[in-house]
Structure formats: C-alpha cells, structure tokens
C-alpha cells in the first residue's frame, strides 16, 4: 500500500470551493484526507508543496494523439508523457482516428495502449455516425458500454438534417452526450482563414463567421426538439457565444468550450503567412478573441481545452493554404490559461475550474476535483516560476507551436495520476 502526502501547499479546488494552505493525504491511489493527518498514517513519500499550488489534475476535452493511424506524427505514449508534464491527468480523444472510433474494438485498443503507457488517463469519444460519413448511426450503446464518454462526428458535418435529428433522438434515449464542432461545410468552403481584412489582403480563401453560427443555430433547433445533451466544441466567434448564451437561458442542456490558443491569437497572427497559426476554426478578429475571453470569465464557455494536434515538420513546411491545420498544444494549455489570470482577464478560481471540474462534468466522469475518496489526480504548480517556451523543451513529438519564444509564469512541478507520481521536475 503506497502512501503519499503533499504538505504545505495552497490547495485550490473549485469543485469543493476550497482555497487554503493545507495537506493532502493519499493512500491506494485515492485522497483519504485533506487537512489533518489521519491516525496511523505514515507516508512513504512526502512532497513539500510550500509556495506551490495544488490543484486537481487537468482534464483536456480534446487532444489528438495520432494513434491509431498517424503514428509518424505522434503516438499515445509520446503524447501522454507530454500531457503528464503539463499537469494533464485526463485526455479525451476525438473519434477521427484511422480507423475511426466507430466500433468497440478501436476503443479497447486505445484504452489498452494508454494503460500500457501509464502516464495519464485517456477517455474516448465514439463516432456518431459509421465512419463519420453522416449516413448511418453508429452502434451508440455498444460504444458507450465499451467506454466512450460521448459521441461526436468530429469536424465532419452530418449534412442531412433528418439523419442529424435521428442521431439526436437516439442519443437522447441512451443518455449519451454529443460533442459537436459546429461547421457548415458549404460556407467554410475549404477556406483557411477568417473572412475579413487580413484574409482579403493575403488572398487566402476565407471562412465566414456564419459557417459556425449557422451550424450552431441549426443544431440548437434540433436540440430543443429532441432534448439531447450537447457540448459545443471549439467556439471561435462572439456571435457564437451570444447564441449559446441565449440557448442556455432557454434551458437547453448544452455546454461549450474554446481552444486555449483562441484566447491569445487572432487573425493578425497569420498576417505573415505563419503556418503555425493555421488552425480550424480559424483565428478570428480581435473583437471575437476578447469576447471569447469574456465568455470563459462569465461561464458561458464552460471549459478551455488544448485542441492538441501534433504534426511532423513537413506538415507546416509549405505555403500557408497547403499546410495542415492545428497546434501542438498540450504543454501550453495551463500556461496560456494562467497568462489570462496574469493579464487580469480571468479569475484564478474560474481559470482552474475551466480546466478541471468543468470539463470533467461535461465528460460525465468523476475526476477534476480533490474530494475525499476521489482518485488522486493532482497537479502541483510553482506559480512564480518564469520560463520561455523553447522547442527543445517540448516533450510532444509535435513541435508545431506558435507560442515558441513566449514567456510564461507558473510551471507544473509534479503530476500525480491515481496516486502515482508520473511527473516531477
């Protein structure tokens, strides 16, 4: 029986409204006490967290680990090591792997590989339609019982509204949460940049805001009719937040997230054809970026995720429109969020909630909090450590980050998964 204590840390746990300097006692992978040492507790290991923050391990709503299918870019082992170093203890994988996560065997394969790697917990989203093709429903109940925490069609849209409605009805009857990345494929029209002055100047094919908002509105009508629980992924515009807010006020069972990079970058960042800023949905205007920050601050946007998409070097070495979209983002998820706190855009408590209890709640899993008897998934942070992001320090196999050279304050010093110390500086 392994016993561990974390002493003298500032424990911040939004789920339990906890913010105090205290001690955590862990036994058998679970938190058995916070505060006073239980009787007969003799720690095998002590972590002195003086001047450090002790928070729940982060829960990342979307990380592509590239396995199975694109192992030349990254794999489950490499990325879960990177995640552990970034304080992330639960990763959620979208279904667009190759093969697609549309049958239980693929779910089992991923879970087995993640267990073998053993650095961080991995959960999966199953495909909402077979092969993500938008034609036939996947075996939703089978995927659920294989362990999928929800279903999604990735960025591929179900174009036939009748099929979409039936998918919603069926998912609602099986009590399954759907994860929707709202995108009208005709309006986005293979574009690679936000429709506006910058794309016009650079001659880049553009994606209007309506590609996202029209799809959100379309989905909301069907959600209202079917009562399905839906999480909207990767919002990019101010107007999207308005739509989500209205729908929440009308009582719909919905939630939303944003990728951390959307809170720091905007269309200006592509103005020198910087392919590291090629992302989907595209970086939008300054006004949209500010609105997204406010949306997180006031809770309209529930969670911040990494939207991790590691790439090989060649994927970004081409003219901008021919590069592959996405950022290697696991290791900047916490730093970028803490930067918002430093900039005064986000309260610390809200920032931590958006990375822990909120995403855990969306996934419907029992993590993201420091409760007694909860699994000891814990992240310890040195809040005063100042550092520069350098390529050599990125543990992910994908080095594609637009944040290289950025300065950050606050760095993970220890990560525990189920009571095991999986990372320490």
């Amino acid at each position, binding site marked *: 029986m392994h016993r561990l204590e974390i002493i003298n840390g500032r424990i911040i746990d939004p789920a339990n409204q906890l913010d105090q300097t205290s001690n955590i006692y862990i036994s058998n992978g679970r938190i058995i006490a916070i505060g006073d040492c239980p009787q007969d507790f003799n720690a095998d290991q002590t972590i002195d967290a003086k001047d450090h923050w002790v928070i729940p391990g982060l829960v990342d709503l979307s990380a592509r680990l590239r396995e199975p299918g694109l192992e030349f870019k990254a794999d489950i082992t490499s990325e879960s090591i990177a995640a552990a170093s970034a304080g992330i203890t639960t990763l959620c994988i979208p279904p667009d792997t190759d093969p697609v996560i549309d049958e239980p065997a693929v779910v089992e394969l991923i879970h087995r590989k993640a267990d073998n790697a053993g650095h961080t917990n991995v959960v999966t989203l199953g495909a909402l339609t077979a092969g993500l093709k938008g034609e036939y429903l996947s075996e939703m109940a089978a995927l659920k019982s294989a362990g999928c925490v929800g279903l999604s069609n990735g960025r591929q849209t179900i174009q036939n509204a009748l099929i979409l409605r039936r998918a919603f009805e069926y998912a609602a009857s099986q009590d399954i949460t759907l994860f929707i990345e709202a995108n009208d494929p005709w309006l986005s029209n293979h574009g690679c940049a936000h429709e506006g002055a910058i794309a016009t100047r650079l*001659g*880049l094919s553009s994606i209007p805001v309506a590609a996202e908002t029209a799809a959100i509105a379309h989905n909301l009508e069907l959600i209202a009719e079917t009562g399905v629980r839906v999480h909207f992924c990767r919002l990019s515009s101010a107007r999207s937040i308005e739509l989500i807010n209205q729908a929440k006020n009308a009582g719909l069972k919905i939630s939303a997230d944003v990728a951390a990079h959307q809170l720091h970058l905007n269309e200006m960042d592509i*103005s020198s054809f910087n392919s590291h800023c090629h992302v989907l949905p595209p970086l939008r205007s300054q006004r949209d970026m500010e609105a997204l920050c406010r949306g997180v601050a006031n809770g309209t946007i529930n969670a911040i995720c990494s939207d991790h998409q590691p790439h090989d070097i060649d994927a970004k*070495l*081409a003219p901008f429109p021919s590069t592959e979209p996405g950022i290697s983002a696991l290791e900047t998820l916490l730093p970028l969020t803490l930067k918002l706190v430093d900039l005064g855009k986000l309260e610390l408590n809200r920032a931590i909630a958006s990375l822990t209890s909120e995403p855990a709640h969306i996934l419907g899993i029992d993590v993201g909090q420091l409760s007694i008897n909860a699994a000891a998934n814990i992240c310890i942070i040195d809040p005063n450590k100042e550092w520069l992001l350098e390529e050599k320090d990125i543990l992910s196999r994908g080095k594609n980050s637009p944040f290289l050279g950025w300065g950050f304050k606050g760095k993970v010093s220890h990560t525990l998964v189920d009571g095991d110390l999986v990372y320490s500086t």
Partner: protein
Amino acid sequence: MVNKATRPTNDLLGQDLWNIQLDSQGQLKHLLTIEGLGSQILTQILDTAESFAGVNESVKKVPLLRGKTIVNLFFEASTRTRTTFELAAKRLSADVLNINISTSATSKGESLLDTLRNLEAMQCDMFIVRHEDSGTAHFIANHVAPHISVLNAGDGQHAHPTQAMLDMFTIRRHKGPDFGALRVAIVGDILHSRVARSQIHALNTLNTGDVRVVAPNTLLPKDIERMGVSVFNDMDEGIRDADVIIMLRLQKERMLGALLPSEQEYFQLYGLTEERLQVAKPDAIVMHPGPINRGVEIESSVADGPQSVILNQVTYGIAVRMAVMSMTLGRSVSQSSADDNRESQ
C-alpha cells in the same frame, strides 16, 4: 554594417511580410508583393523600366545579367507572363530554364521544398515563381539559399507585383507622373484577383487620387475597402469620370459556384461597351491584364478601340520585368556577397 533601410528583425516574431524583400542596404532583393514597398522603390522600378523600353524598341541585348541563370518555375499554366519573363531575361543576356510543374513532381508527392532543393543544386540565381497557393513566393523566399532572388509571378489570390508595376508603367506613360490627379476604377472579379490586390497597393503607394473597385458583392472580398478603395456595385457610377479603367478577366468557372447567374447578365451589368465608356473621361484609357474574354467583360470594339492600351501593356511588361530582374540580380557584387555572409550566419 549599419542596417539603414530595413527594420530590425526578431527571429522569435518572424519576418515582416515586406521586410524580407530588401537587403541590408535597402535594395530590392526579392519582389514578392507591392505591399510595404515605398514609393521610392516603385518609382525606381518605373524609371529603370523606362531606360529598358528603348532596348526593347531597337531589339538589342544588354549584357547586364550575362552568366546568371534564371528559372521560370511555373506551377500554374501561363503563356503570357512566362513568355515575357523569358524574353526579359534573354534581353538581359541571362540563361533561362523553363520548368512547368503543374503536372509533374509535386503531384507525384515530392514536396515543394524538395523541388526547390533540387533546383538550387543546379546553381541558379533567380526563381520566378507562379503557384496556386497564396503565400508561395514568401515561403520560397524564406527557404531558398541566401544568394537566390525570388520574383513572384502570381501566388494564389495574393499578389502579382510585376503585373501591377507594368500597369503603373502604362498609366504613367499615358497619364503622366502625377497619380494624385487620377481616378482609377478596377472592374470585375476582385475576389479572385491577385492582380487587383497588387494594383490597389501600387496605386495607393503612388498616391493615386481615387481608387475604386466595381463589382457585384459576390466578387468582392470582405472588407476590401480597408485596402484603401471605394466600392461600387453600379458600373456607371463606378467608372464615372474615370481616367483609367482596368477590366479584369472573368473566369468562366465562376458560374459554377453561383457567384454569377450568367455571362450575359454579367456583360449587361459590368461589361465595358462603347456606350458605357462615354461616362468616363473622354481621354480615359482602358486596360486589361489579359487574356481577354471578348463579349464577357469587354466589347471587342472597346478592346481594339482608340482608348485601349491593352497591347501596350504587354510590350511594357518586358521592360518592367527587365527592370526588376536587373535591380534584384544586378545589385553590386560586394553588396550581395556581404548579404550572403550575413544571412548564412
């Protein structure tokens, strides 16, 4: 050496889009976009072109670029632009290699960078590049060996700077050097036009009095007015009292994406006819980057009429391209080698 004309660079932030075009002495090294080049450099291009216009007329070669190798690297089909670049290079006594890649290497999976590395190994001095992706010329300029100059012969919908400069040359020859007095209307498919974007930058840099674009909203990119133009949907209003009318080619495939109902309706609303030309200034000139779609964007009698300078544009194109090649490749030897040292560090 003191860095006089370029801005300080910061490796972490990446290159300014335009800064990369100048060497440490502020001389033109690449021509990728008009944007950010000052009026001084644009005027220098025009003046140098003026000096070469005579060479063209008496069909003589000048030995300025003897021993230099220039590669026409065209990933997109082109006859006119490629030919004028080739002629310009030959009149400057350079060796020219034409490579059309639209159907060869890159479609077989060779990356653009691999293609470049292979060509670099052949000791070339200049790449003239056309590619369907916006930003290609910048990408290449950022990745080629430091002694190579890159000229953008059209990248996606982004820029076509030599076309814009030959248009400025045409305007200056026919309307004089004071652009401030001119009203210029660009008519047609602005959305898909790299020519229009480069023209707008050039006209504004040269302080043109009034720059207008005329098109239906489906052919106008969003926020185009922020590039410094006024927008007109109505053709008659747009070209009223114009000194210069630039007609753009309408690609036939635009009907497929529902951007326009038909060629007939387009011609009715935006085609330049003799009758419509009456609302412009009596001495207005009519320009077109070619190739022309007669009866789609312009009436034959206008294209061939007295106010048309369309064929002059083609002729001037050679002089302007000679000017740009000689300015970029003909920089003094000591200077360019100093640059090479700096950049290879």
